[in-house]
């Protein structure tokens, strides 16, 4: 009987909501329209941002060197990285043998940038002498900006990684030295030699090369999450609509949660309290209403996104889990916020303000893509930030186990707000 009554209350609310034109516009039409508009603004082709392909003239003069693990050639590695599938939509590489030919290619406008790896590249990077340096030469067409910048970014990043491995080796050696000699040996640093250092540098470098070849180079794509080994293209519409969906689910949830206060003011809630139905059942029914409404809202938006924009949301299981989570968070947050409000008008104004603030901090309006830096720290202070991180990953092909962190944080947030909101409502109406 209790379950029947809860279902009756929830069904009644869902029916009311989906009969209300304003509510429908806010819940469904607005996010779809905004996603369509933003999708168009960003070009709207199926590969998302359309960055033109940059033609690169590449010269590898690196002589490499031998190590105990076999020959090492970092120039070849850089060449492989530039050729990697991750970058094939960004770069078209032509290999030249002489730097002069490469420059000529740029001068004639056949390439946007020339990259020349010097002969001593590997030798100086793996040298134990910290003063040993070597420079990669970039020769760019001054009329081009984007392409050369991308190439500079990528080579810089690779070079940093190499230098990083050298620095790490050096630090490790110094740490070992500071720890003092092992028992039975005399004198400080007596066990650290230049040969040891060189050996370790070579080892870390070759380990780095191996790792890069096994896992693919993942540091240079525009997006951060480390699921790229099975990455799929999220598409701009997916990124934008997921942001809109989360935002408008929060609003949709709050609208239904507000119906608790509305019903109190309109007298149907007091009237419910005169029926032989326990107050906890009535309030429980309202909570289920909020959850079901945002859940159906999410399902409709997901389906509409697929049908209208051809969005491939990702795997069924992670998408289902994340949808459920998003609905729980929207419901929890809505119930909590509305429980603090006195009048329907107050609830309307204050919840919208809170949601817009959260959306600005959490990044709903910039789609779900991670921007990086301070922003990615701030967004993790918001529930929508976590949800969007999850949606971003799922859109890029993440499986359920890849988004466990996002799911757990969202669940915890939903649970806390839901319980707090329910308790406040219970106290208020007892």
């Amino acid at each position, binding site marked *: 009987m209790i379950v*029947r009554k809860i279902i009756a209350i929830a069904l009644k609310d869902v029916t009311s909501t989906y009969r209300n034109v304003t509510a429908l516009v806010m819940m469904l039409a607005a996010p779809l329209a905004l996603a369509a508009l933003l999708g168009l603004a960003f070009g709207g082709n199926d590969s998302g941002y359309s960055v033109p392909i940059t033609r690169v003239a590449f010269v590898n003069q690196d002589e490499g060197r031998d190590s105990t693990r076999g020959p090492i050639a970092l120039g070849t590695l850089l060449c492989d990285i530039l050729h990697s599938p991750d970058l094939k939509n960004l770069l078209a590489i032509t290999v030249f043998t002489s730097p002069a030919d490469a420059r000529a290619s740029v001068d004639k406008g056949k390439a946007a940038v020339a990259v020349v790896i010097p002969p001593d590249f590997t030798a100086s990077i793996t040298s134990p002498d910290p003063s040993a340096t070597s420079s990669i030469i970039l020769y760019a067409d001054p009329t081009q900006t984007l392409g050369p910048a991308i190439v500079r970014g990528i080579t810089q990043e690779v070079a940093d990684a190499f230098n990083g491995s050298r620095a790490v080796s050096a630090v490790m050696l110094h740490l070992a030295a500071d720890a003092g000699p092992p028992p039975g040996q005399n004198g400080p640093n007596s066990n650290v030699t230049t040969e040891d250092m060189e050996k370790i540098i070579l080892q870390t470098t070759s380990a780095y090369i191996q790792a890069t070849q096994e896992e693919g180079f993942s540091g240079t794509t525009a997006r951060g999450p480390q699921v790229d080994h099975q990455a799929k293209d999220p598409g701009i519409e997916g990124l934008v609509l997921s942001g809109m969906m989360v935002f408008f689910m929060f609003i949709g949830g709050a609208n239904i949660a507000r119906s608790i206060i509305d019903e109190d003011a309109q007298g149907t809630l007091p009237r419910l309290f005169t029926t032989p139905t326990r107050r906890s059942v009535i309030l429980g029914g309202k909570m289920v209403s909020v959850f079901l409404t945002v859940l159906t809202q999410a399902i409709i938006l997901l389906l509409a996104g697929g049908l209208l924009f051809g969005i491939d949301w990702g795997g069924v299981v992670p998408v289902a889990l994340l949808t459920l989570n998003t609905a729980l968070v929207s419901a929890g947050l809505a119930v909590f916020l509305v429980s603090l409000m006195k009048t329907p008008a107050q609830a309307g104004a204050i919840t919208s303000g809170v949601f817009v603030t959260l959306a600005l901090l959490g990044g709903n309006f910039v789609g779900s893509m991670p921007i990086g830096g301070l922003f990615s720290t701030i967004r993790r202070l918001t529930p929508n930030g976590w949800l969007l991180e999850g949606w971003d990953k799922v859109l890029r092909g993440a499986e359920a186990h890849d988004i466990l962190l996002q799911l757990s944080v969202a669940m915890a947030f939903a649970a806390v707000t839901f319980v707090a909101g329910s308790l406040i409502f219970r106290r208020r109406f007892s």
Partner: protein
Amino acid sequence: MGFIEADNLRKQFDPPRGVIAVDGVSFAIEAGEIYSLLGPNGAGKTTVISILSCLLRPTEGDARVGGNSVVHQAAAVKSLIGMVPQDIALYMDLSARENLVFWGKMYGMVGAELNRRVDEVLELIDLKDRQRERVDKYSGGMKRRVNIGVALLHRPQALYLDEPTVGIDPQSRRAILDAILEFRNQGMTILYTTHYMAEAQELSDRIGIMDHGRMIAEGTHEELVRIVGEDAHVQLSVDRNLEALMNVWPTLDGVGTVSAENGKITLLVHDATSTLPYLFETAQREGARITEISVMEPNLEMVFLHLTGRALRD
């Protein structure tokens, strides 16, 4: 022992400083009786009815419905009563039928029984034809009827109606009053609140007059009217010689006090029918004409005026 018994009910909102809406009210309603609470706005009628329907917890006192305490056995009380709130409490975006089905479920009804009962109630409130239209498309009177229908679904033994005729056309009002009398004839116990004296007088077996949270008088209509005596009020205006008449009329048989205010004379008379001809006769003899006259038989309005010094409708 009454079917509904209120025992020294007291309700203070937001204690310790809030309004004392009900202040020591006691009364009993027999099974099968129509009992009206009559009083002006703010008298505390809705608060009493809310306590009796377990919506508000009394600050002090208790009440019993069918022997069950409203404080301690709320569930039992709620299934015995049907409550018609003062303001229409329906879902405006649902149809009449959808509303009735929903509220029926809240009273624990299901399936075929629920559907059958919804049909019966729709028949009873005369909305069968328009049962599938949204309630917000209905007239005020139709909404009121649905509002009452909801409370009848589970065949309650007692029906509370809180000012159910406010703001509707005379025809709908008539229909509602007739329906209430019919419910009583079928054995329902009815608690009715109103600030219309005429409604209380017409419907009620007994009436409680409330003011400022207190029960100031209680009884049948006849008993209450006796509080102000049997005298009718006759109010009239004359075109001249007012002073002379003011001296003559008090000497007539069957006339009590005579007073004048703003050119209008008020007389208390024992029996208006036999006294009126003499009033016209004496006026003519003094060379005056009665230009306006009205007779007020003793009624609840006068009782209220008598007890509080204020008119019922303020």
